């Protein structure tokens, strides 16, 4: 659902500009009290322009100005070595690795479970209600425990975080895939029956291709959930590396600019991931004859 040329670009651009303007006003409003306090104590008197500029350039502002965040993101993305602990690319890469690993395992697991549910009535009747119910549960609350518990058995690093992502991405894929494998019309199933097609033939030639759009739709949800899982999974590891760690470190030291930069980095990663899934979906579906919308 990206903005396309059909009269959406201008409204989106204007609303984004409006958000930027509000952000600047907010920056002034939120940073002004502290600046005033600071100036009073330091006995500094400033002109109003000077005061305005001061609110925009605090080192640890309550709300950093957009350009402060932009500068931070730019410096930590392009001007640092990728191996540097301050590089956002480095942190994003750490998070990305566990996101992708977890997403891959979760998707595979989700597909397997869905195939099982569609083919075994008893699994459908006993497991499916739990799958649906589990979506209403704040699973993310498990994250810190999974990390700590796995650390207790000497499992640290990438895998525990990836497991949280697996957990979060597996549910949407399983549910979406069940829907997809069940999506063929009755007449298509009847047709296969008149051909005396085997269960395997019906699966490979009808159910699986029919489920592809559902799979991609749920993969888009799953990869976003996967990233959230990876970020939250980084919180209890003691803020070593990753976007979640960067957020936590920022909150320890009140480095608001760093926190916003980490948030931006996380958002960029999210958009890249969702766009990648979207692109893959387009390529595959075009090959499968989908209308070029």
């Amino acid at each position: 659902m990206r903005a396309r040329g059909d009269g959406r670009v201008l409204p989106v651009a204007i609303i984004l500009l409006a958000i930027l303007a509000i952000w600047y006003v907010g920056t002034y409003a939120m940073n002004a009290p502290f600046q005033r306090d600071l100036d009073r104590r330091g006995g500094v008197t400033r002109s109003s322009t000077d005061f305005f500029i001061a609110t925009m350039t605090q080192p640890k502002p309550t709300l950093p100005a957009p350009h402060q965040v932009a500068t931070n993101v730019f410096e930590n993305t392009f001007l640092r070595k990728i191996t540097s602990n301050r590089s956002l690319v480095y942190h994003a890469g750490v998070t990305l690795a566990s996101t992708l690993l977890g997403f891959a395992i979760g998707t595979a697991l989700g597909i397997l479970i869905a195939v099982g549910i569609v083919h075994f009535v008893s699994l459908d009747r006993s497991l499916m209600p739990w799958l649906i119910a589990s979506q209403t549960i704040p699973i993310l609350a498990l994250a810190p425990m999974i990390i700590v518990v796995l650390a207790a058995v000497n499992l640290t690093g990438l895998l525990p975080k990836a497991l949280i992502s697996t957990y979060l991405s597996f549910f949407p894929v399983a549910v979406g895939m069940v829907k997809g494998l069940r999506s063929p019309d009755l007449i298509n199933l009847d047709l296969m029956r008149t051909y005396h097609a085997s269960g395997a033939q019906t699966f490979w030639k009808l159910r699986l291709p029919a489920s592809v759009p559902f799979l991609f739709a749920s993969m888009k949800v799953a990869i976003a959930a996967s990233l959230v899982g990876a970020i939250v999974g980084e919180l209890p590891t003691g803020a070593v590396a990753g976007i979640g760690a960067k957020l936590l470190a920022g909150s320890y030291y009140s480095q608001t600019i760093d926190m916003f930069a980490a948030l931006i980095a996380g958002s960029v990663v999210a958009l890249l991931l969702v766009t990648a899934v979207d692109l893959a979906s387009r390529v595959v579906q075009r090959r499968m004859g989908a209308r070029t919308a």
Partner: protein
Amino acid sequence: MHNPASQLQPASPAVPPAVSARGLGLTFETNDGPVQALADVDLTINKGEFVSFIGPSGCGKTTFLRVIADLEQPTQGAISVNGMSPQQARERRAYGYVFQAAALYPWRTIENNVALPLEIMGFSAADKRARIARTLDLVNLTGFKKKFPWQLSGGMQQRASIARALSFDADLLLMDEPFGALDEIVRDHLNQQLLELWERTSKTICFVTHSIPEAVYLSTRIVVMSPRPGRVTDVIESDLPRDRPLDIRETPAFLAIAARVRDGLRAGHSYDE
């Protein structure tokens, strides 16, 4: 569930009829109690016939087609297809079924849609190619074989689905209101093509329709059915010549048969719903 096929064969010929139903009935269990979709149907369809089934909705014409194709199980009576049970006939791939919707797979091109039954039935690659070419030619879609279904008009999609039903040389073509969703002009055209195709392939065709002119124009025999319970009320033989141009529909002979069908429908159907 089925009687032995031997009991059902007609007295005379060595060739068993394409379809033979004796006292056939089907009752669906629904939440509102049992519904009798078919009751006491006796009907024999010989090889090479073109039989139309006509009647108001709920008269069981589609259900009868589905029973022939082993998509539903009868609850009373017996039915045989080519002298065997519908299930055996299905296992021998005797059915080419055409639904009201084309039901083409959107992710397959036209030629791959036609290839679908061939893949399932395990035809060799060369045979597959030859059959696709032949059946697509039969329905005049050769130039469209690389297209996807949505790139074709509704009439062309339905022709592709007919090609798919023809590709594996099923003996019996079961068509459930195949042209019901198409407009009049396209429908006329396809009716004409279907007749030519029947002439060339000499298949047995069972054709469900709502339209009296369509039934009379296409068939050698018209089976009139009525609802609650679904049953056969009249079977009308058509003495029209096999070669039927579209304007045969204005001839007195045609109109006479059409009038008989209409009378049959009226007699079997009350309009106080």
